[in-house]
């Protein structure tokens, strides 16, 4: 046992691990800069947010460590249980969740708030990877191919009504990428895409809430309403753009320090990076993400079996979708869906889920050899 543990530690992907650790500290630094002068009614302590975020990081790394050492072949046995537990939690949240900013997303656990929809991302990766690896061949049947959509759809629906459009899109992205990687017929994917596209009007007129429609309209023309929703995007662009090549220095951002950026410690934290650390800082960040995703892809293609490959792919697609949508939103090139940025955005559940999927990656990596 001890010998096995030693071997595992020896074989860890330290490139990936270092990139993640650097990202975490990079995140704490930026978080400090964007929250040190207090936000709204929050206490005066300039380290209030940093301390809390660090605590969650510790929790996340503990979770990661545990996850690394349980061979993924063991824990996928509980994937169905995991899935139904998630559905259960999401239903609980529907009735007992705490509401903030008009969305019911949180469950209170003592002094901390827990966000089941974040936990669901990890659960969905495990569940789908297991399901697809087992049923790869059956997926040639179009009707069977729709099954994973049904499973994912349940989660999407439960999150969508919170309402949290962004997160439900994350689930969909994980599913689509996994289906693609597992090798389903591309024409099936195309068919689903066409159905989705043609159902868009239904979505628009019956399902999307007014604020969600406005977000999409505003994405198309943010100047339309400079003080409403579009204000965020304009302010974010001003912040990033004004950072220039080298940035205004940490704590030196006019926009960030004067709090022109809404949600600058969560969804718009990249704007603070752009303004204070400039092009150099933003590219450095993008580079760190590239390292993480590249190692993730490498782990996927070198995995021992299809299950490992799919688990790693799921982890990669989760991180990738968040990074892409968040940065794109901050730069105003993608609609504002309100997704946080991995390892940087403030938020305990999200931080933990980020580290857990890194745990999955490392797990697949160290178990590519049968011990």
């Amino acid at each position, binding site marked *: 046992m001890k010998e096995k543990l030693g071997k595992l530690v020896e074989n860890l992907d330290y490139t990936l691990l270092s990139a993640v650790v650097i990202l975490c500290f990079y995140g704490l630094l930026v978080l400090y800069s964007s929250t040190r002068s207090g936000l709204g009614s929050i206490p005066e302590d300039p380290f209030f947010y940093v301390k809390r975020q660090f605590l969650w990081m510790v929790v996340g790394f503990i979770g990661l460590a545990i996850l690394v050492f349980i061979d993924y072949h063991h824990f996928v046995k509980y994937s169905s249980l995991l899935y139904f537990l998630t559905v259960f939690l999401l239903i609980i949240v529907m009735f007992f969740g705490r509401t903030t900013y008009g969305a019911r997303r949180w469950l209170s656990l003592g002094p901390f708030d827990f966000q089941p929809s974040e936990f669901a991302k990890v659960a969905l990766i495990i569940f789908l990877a297991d399901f697809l690896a087992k049923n790869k061949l059956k997926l040639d049947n179009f009707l069977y191919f729709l099954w994973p959509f049904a499973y994912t759809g349940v989660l999407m629906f439960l999150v969508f009504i919170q309402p949290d459009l962004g997160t439900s899109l994350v689930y969909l992205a994980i599913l689509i*990428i996994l289906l*693609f*990687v*597992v*090798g389903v017929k591309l024409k099936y994917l195309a068919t689903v895409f066409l159905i989705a596209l043609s159902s868009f009007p239904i979505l628009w007129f019956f399902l999307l809430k007014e604020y969600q429609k406005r977000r999409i309209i505003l994405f198309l023309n943010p100047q339309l309403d*400079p*003080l409403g929703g579009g204000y965020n995007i304009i*302010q974010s*662009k*001003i*912040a*990033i*753009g*004004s*950072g*220039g*090549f080298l940035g205004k220095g940490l704590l030196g951002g*006019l*926009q960030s320090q*004067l*709090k*022109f*950026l*809404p949600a600058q410690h969560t969804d718009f934290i990249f704007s603070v990076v*752009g*303004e204070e650390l*400039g*092009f150099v800082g*933003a*590219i450095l960040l*993008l580079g760190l*993400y*590239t390292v993480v*995703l*590249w190692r993730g*892809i490498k782990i*996927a*293609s*070198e*995995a*021992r*079996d*299809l299950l*490992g*490959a799919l688990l790693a*792919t799921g982890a*990669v*697609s989760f991180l*990738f979708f968040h990074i*892409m949508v968040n*940065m*794109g939103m901050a*730069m105003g*090139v993608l609609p504002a869906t309100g997704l946080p940025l991995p390892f940087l955005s403030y938020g305990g559940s999200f931080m933990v889920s980020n580290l857990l999927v890194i745990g999955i990656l490392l797990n697949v990596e160290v178990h*590519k*050899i*049968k*011990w």
Partner: protein
Amino acid sequence: MKESSTVPEEVKQRINWLLIFIIVSFCFLAINLWYLQVIKGEEFKERAVKNCIRSLVEEAPRGHIYDRKGEVLVTNRPVVVVSIIPEEVENLEELSKRLGGIIDLPEEVIREKVEKHSAEPFKPVEILEDCPLALTIEIEERKTELKGVVLEVKPRRNYLNQELAAHSLGYVGEIDQEELQKLGNPQLQGGDIVGKAGLEKYYDSFLRGKKGQKEVEVDALGREVATLFSQKPVAGNDLLLTMDKDLQTYAENLLEGKRGSIILSHPYSGEILVLANKPSFDPNWFTEEISYADWEKISLDPDYPLINRAVQSIYSPGSTFKIVTALAALEEGVTDSQRKIYCSGNFKLADQVFTCWKRGGHGNLNLIGALAHSCNVYFYTLGKELGVQKMGRYMDKLGLGEKVGIDLPAEATGVIPSPEWKQREFKEIWFPGDDVNLSIGQGYLLLTPLQMHSIICAVATAGDIYRPHLVKEIISPEGEVFEKTEPEISKKVNISANTFQLIQKGLRATILEGTGWQANTKELSLAGKTGTAQNPQGESHAWFVGFAPLEKPEVCITVFVENGGEGGEVAAPLAREMLEKYFNLPEPE
């Protein structure tokens, strides 16, 4: 114990495609970053600064205006302005409804005003100027439900005596585009209050003061975080006038119900004690937001209440102009103290007949008698003998045709006819009959009451015309005299003292035994001349010009009543009352 991977090749291939997709996506992000931060960086830097630095302007109170005894005529009073900062409004419709209910303004009006200014969301939009105290208190009390509404205190011009001396004081208003360009002062900007007429306009640069400026850094909620630069406003300079409020009030009462002017000044300094015009207006109207209907009513009033008649309107001077004819004739040797001319009541020129106002004729008269009785035939004769060229030379010497130079804007210069002028205006030659008409101040000649006043001043001082002025001193906000108007001879009339003496005698005779007898007071040695100017607009204009005392002139007076009738009957009594007031004489029974 290594086992080879069982991942199908097909899956590995698709994973590679995913990698390519990720790389392409990240390149897309990187290119966007480059565009935003490096290519557009400078532009966004400017916008970021604009976003957080707000320039606030504190208005400077305009200088006060005092009469010569230091009594306040014009001051500022603080008014409460209700404004809305668009950025801070959460629900404009709701707010408009609430605020509209308090200040009794339709909610659509408020909404429109705010929406019109949405391009500058941090700049307060004025909703109500001069909010009454009770409403101010109510707004203050309900502040929490009126988020976005701010109350500001601003100075507003206050003319304490309403119509009194309105034409001299003038009024203020918002600067217009034309003035912005003409004044060319970088401190001025749209929305600023500047002088629009009268002294307010003439002395605007002194009265205006210097706006205060404050540059503050604000956070996203518009709260001031730091002051980057601050300059306190500097109040404008005060004006101490030469005008005497009591005399001015008295003069305006004399003119009540008439259209006309009274000017009273010191001939040896040019200080104007009275510059009264009727009908008048209340300059306070213009400090409020005047409605188009009101503006139309004032500006289209057939009595032209906005016109400063004494300075801006031109009229036939009538017989008062005989002073000038007499001056020219004496200097040119056309007449002397002895020459007598017979007046039969008619004057024949070729086939034209000009009449004296006294049908039966004056008989034999010398110059003094002719002035006293205002005999037209005597002056027709002089005019015919002098001719327009020589007459013109003396009009020139007296400064007619130029501005007198009073410290008020838009002074008129009159119409000074000459053969060239007639040719230009009417394409006609100058007839001998025109000489005759000119000699008694009729025909083409048109002068302002102020120009006539300037002539009588020249007679009083025997040739020195002092620049007439309304402002005695300009006083800094600290109370120091910033500029003092020294008496200045603006025109030295090159005419012999003997000539002036003779004219003075004639004008004294006018009061004692001639047409000006109704101006006579036995305690005062007044000299003067009446005038009854026929004009195409109807009833004659009544004139009186004079000075007193004869021996050592202290004041000059001009009374003009538009379409008032006979000068001797209408203008002369007004002059007497005015002078009795000035010299503190007992009212005659």
